[in-house]
């Protein structure tokens, strides 16, 4: 399972960003290999088609098959459905990456 998580900071104390596509960073977590890395969202300031570009980049560059978010935009949600991605929607916006990694056993 390779999970993309939108995070407010590039460290484990950062919390999940409320808006998926406008998140400054993503944590890419590989559950089986127990590894994670931070990547910068280069599409954050784009005016149109952010969701689509971001989604394509996460899939192609990192082989993401799971999205974890507090809220997913409609475009990302549709793309995820088309690709049969695993979606995880958390109910607590103050959840830190540290806590998520703990849940995932990473």
């Amino acid at each position, binding site marked *: 399972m390779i999970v993309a998580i939108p995070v407010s900071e590039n460290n484990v104390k950062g919390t999940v960003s409320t808006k998926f596509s406008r998140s400054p960073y993503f944590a890419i977590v590989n559950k089986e290999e127990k590894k994670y890395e931070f990547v910068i969202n280069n599409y954050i300031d784009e005016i149109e088609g952010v969701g689509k570009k971001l989604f394509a980049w996460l899939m192609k560059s990192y082989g993401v098959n799971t999205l974890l978010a507090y809220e*997913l935009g*409609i475009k990302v*949600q*549709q793309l995820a*459905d088309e690709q049969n991605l*695993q979606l995880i*929607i958390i*109910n607590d916006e103050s959840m830190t990456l540290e806590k*998520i990694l703990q849940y995932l056993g990473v």
Partner: protein
Amino acid sequence: MPKPRVLSKIQMPPRVKGFNPMGYYRKNAEPVKLSIDEYEAIRLLDYEGLTQKQAASIMGVSRPSVTRIYQKARVKMATMITEARQLSIEGGRIFFDSSWFCCENCDSKFNAPLGKQPECCVLCGANTIYNLEE
């Protein structure tokens, strides 16, 4: 006789089962019941800013159906805030895009892509999960 409305497709279950007014609320007043298709119409049209045509295509219903669902939803939302009523979000002629589950341990929701039924929570691994459609 109007012909029966087709089921609306819902992408994701609503986050909560309802809302309570702050501070004051009328005792014994029936909560306003917003159905899940009405919630979805408000989300797609007002939160996501889609057109009625786009929302109709996502929900898999006709444009006039979306107009009707949305109209009802707006009246209910207005009643809720004007009369300070509780709001419950439940029911409706709907089906989910894929099965959705909720975990009692980490309070997250997750889907089951390709119809694979999960035995435990995909986030925390707990087996305290239940199907949101049941």
